[in-house]
């Protein structure tokens, strides 16, 4: 032992990166481990966040990358409230999640645009240009955005096989289906990378390295149940108020996803073209319920965060604020389209609102691989791994006994 030399290379760039996205207090930690004891989610065998704090202080990217703990934290802020050094482990963990997100997903410049305030105008511009180009292509020239009959409700239709689609639907399908495809490909790749590092880090025996199919069928469903019930989130102490608005927000997203899917099938494939009657159509009502849940959830999260900041258990840094306000804007502009469309003297401004709404939705889609929104995928992966790991631990133990 005594003769072995352990060479440790601190990675200053990783430390600086953590500090630049909300973890500026990381260096204050003096490893007393108060955080690990007060955390209601931290397990006995692999407690967090104390260990990850020292890994972050040294900038150990690889180790942080292969640690599911940073995703098992729901940032209730108990650790931050009790931290004797005001090192704010909860907020540091948020920045570690951003760092790992950046590590795992290609086209890192997009991540930078998402997580630094100066990137916002660039992002808006990028999404506007893409939407503008495809609008111009599908609307056969630049439409008049101040005339709703020109944009979005033009009389240009495309016949594709048995389908007859209006220009706006073609534009949206081209842009958003390819965007969704891009997001799915990069995230699937990232999840696969993440999963492999977890398997290696935890030395999972080959016999227990199941196929993705088996993992999904045995562990993804229980994980999704847990996530939808917010059973981990509700254990959080200081910020227990967050679980309910977050749950409503998740329900809102699920309902809106179903609504969009229904519209896609009914309008684009079956041919029941929108706009539908805003007062009587059941799918419209489903959309309204989803939208209201979304607005209720996001406003609850924004106002709750302000309260939590007063109690010093949570800090809202730019990446947090960006996502909160982006979702709020998606909700507000979504409802604004319905309102503008129904009021005659506002009718011609519908095109402008429509464009703004598409920009916010575009940014929200792209936020999945590049912002804090990545937790949608990565936290789910970590929860799946947690269930899987506990299960094979049990199996290993029982095989030891027999």
């Amino acid at each position: 032992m005594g003769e072995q030399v352990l060479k440790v290379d601190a990675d200053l760039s990783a430390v600086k990166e953590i500090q630049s996205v909300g973890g500026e207090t990381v260096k204050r930690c003096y490893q007393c481990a108060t955080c690990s004891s007060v955390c209601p989610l931290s397990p006995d065998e692999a407690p967090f966040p104390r260990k990850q704090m020292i890994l972050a202080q040294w900038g150990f990217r690889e180790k942080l990358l292969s640690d599911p703990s940073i995703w098992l934290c729901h940032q209730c802020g108990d650790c931050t409230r009790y931290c004797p050094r005001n090192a704010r482990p909860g907020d540091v963990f948020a920045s570690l999640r951003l760092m790992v997100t950046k590590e795992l997903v290609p086209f890192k410049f997009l991540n930078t645009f998402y997580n630094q305030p100066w990137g916002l105008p660039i992002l808006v511009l990028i999404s506007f240009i893409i939407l503008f180009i495809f609008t111009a292509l599908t609307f056969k020239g630049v439409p008049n955005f101040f005339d709703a009959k020109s944009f979005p409700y033009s009389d240009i239709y495309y016949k594709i096989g048995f389908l007859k689609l209006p220009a706006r639907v073609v534009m949206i399908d081209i842009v958003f289906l390819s965007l969704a495809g891009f997001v799915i490909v990069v995230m699937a790749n990232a999840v696969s990378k993440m999963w492999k590092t977890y398997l290696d880090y935890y030395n999972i025996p080959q016999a227990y390295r199941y196929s993705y199919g088996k993992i999904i069928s045995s562990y993804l469903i229980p994980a999704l149940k847990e996530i939808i019930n917010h059973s981990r989130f509700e254990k959080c102490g200081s910020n227990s108020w967050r679980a309910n608005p977050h749950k409503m927000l998740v329900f809102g997203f699920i309902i809106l996803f179903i609504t969009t899917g229904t519209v896609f099938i009914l309008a684009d494939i079956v041919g029941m073209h929108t706009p539908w009657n805003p007062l009587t159509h059941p799918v419209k009502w489903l959309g309204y319920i989803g939208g209201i849940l979304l607005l209720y959830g996001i406003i609850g999260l924004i106002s709750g965060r302000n309260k939590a900041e007063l109690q010093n258990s949570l800090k809202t840094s730019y990446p947090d604020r960006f996502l909160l306000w982006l979702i709020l804007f998606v909700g507000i502009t979504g409802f604004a389209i319905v309102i503008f469309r129904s009021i005659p003297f506002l009718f011609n401004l519908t095109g402008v609102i429509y464009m703004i709404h598409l920009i916010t939705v575009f940014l929200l889609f792209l936020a999945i691989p590049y912002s804090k929104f990545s937790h949608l995928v990565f936290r789910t992966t970590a929860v799946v791994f947690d269930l899987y790991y506990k299960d094979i631990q049990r199996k290993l133990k029982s095989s030891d006994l027999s």
Partner: protein
Amino acid sequence: MANQSILVVGGGISGITSAIEAAEMEVPVYLVEREPTLGGRVGQLRYYFPKLCPPTCGLELNYKRMKANPNLTIYTMTDVLEINGGPGNFKVKLRKRPRFVNDNCTACGECEKVCEGERVSDFDFGLGKTKAIYLPSPMAFPGKYVLDKNALAPGDLERIISACPYNAIDPDMKEEVFELEVGAIIWATGWKLYDATRLDNLGYGKYANVVTNMQVERMASPWGPTGGRILRPSDGEAPKRVAFVQCAGSRDENHLPYCSYICCLATLKHTLYLAEQSPETECLVFYIDIRTPGRYEKFLKRAQNEANINFIKGKVAKIEEDPATKDLIVTAEDTLSGKKVNERVNMVVLALGMQPSTSDNPIPGLTTDEYGFVVEKEGIIPVGCAKKPLDVMCSNESATGAVIKALQIIKSA
């Protein structure tokens, strides 16, 4: 010509040292103490550092010197209200609370025998009770009883007055406000224990068997509430397994941001008390760093040899009670193994930190820092734990040094 007298505020070990050292230089010295007796925190301990002497050892010698010295005037039960003037001519306003017992008292104890009313003993940190008329400590100086009028039972006063053979009870004594003119002030008001109820995750005040380090001192003291035995408050049993929570309130920006200097050593001392009581008592010491300043390193070795200690590197941040046995489950992360430990113990001792006595009652004319420690300014010299957290030895060194400064001021101003 500057005023040639010195005021020493606080009659603990530092104040006593300063007062007697100055008085023996033949200058007039006033020693002012808030409590009814001198002795301060040292008087409450079982043993004190560096050599683990009982408090009688250091205090009685000094009391003898004080009794023999004509230059020293002592005021007990007296608070400083405000300080005016400057070096060489301070005017200090004081308030003396009534003792209701006059100088005739010989501490014979006849009054106590007939008194029925009782009061919680703050000297014993709430672990015991005294009669409404009581001797503040077995080695009280001055050796006189005190009457707490609020604790009297009906008829007590008449019984006490008729029981006193020396006509020493004076229920009509009044509060006095008076002024002293002095050339220099030595400030030695010492420390108090940080309020453990503010550490809401450690269960003090909620769970019977979570006690403070100073309560352990009182229990270990032969004339303390348990006659020298360290016992569980819930059932009076001797604990077999005790957890010590280091840095309870200290090195914590939500409480006391500084290190209180003595708590690690106090805990090591307590493990020796427990070993003395029963050698197999297991002590779990949960720590961030064990701090043994200077030569106290060897005391750590001594405790490791003589007591049954299990050191766990990780701060306790959660304590739960088993309601059936009143045992406690202490949770910490052992940072050396990286796993959480949940230990069942019979008793928890919070190694609470020191807060300066001046932390929550600002006195006009006295400068304190952000934590309440007294800051030196010309003519007002803080010593001992009024200045910073210290042990007895360092407090006495600062107290002696302060006398030189005070003498320089009154001789040169």
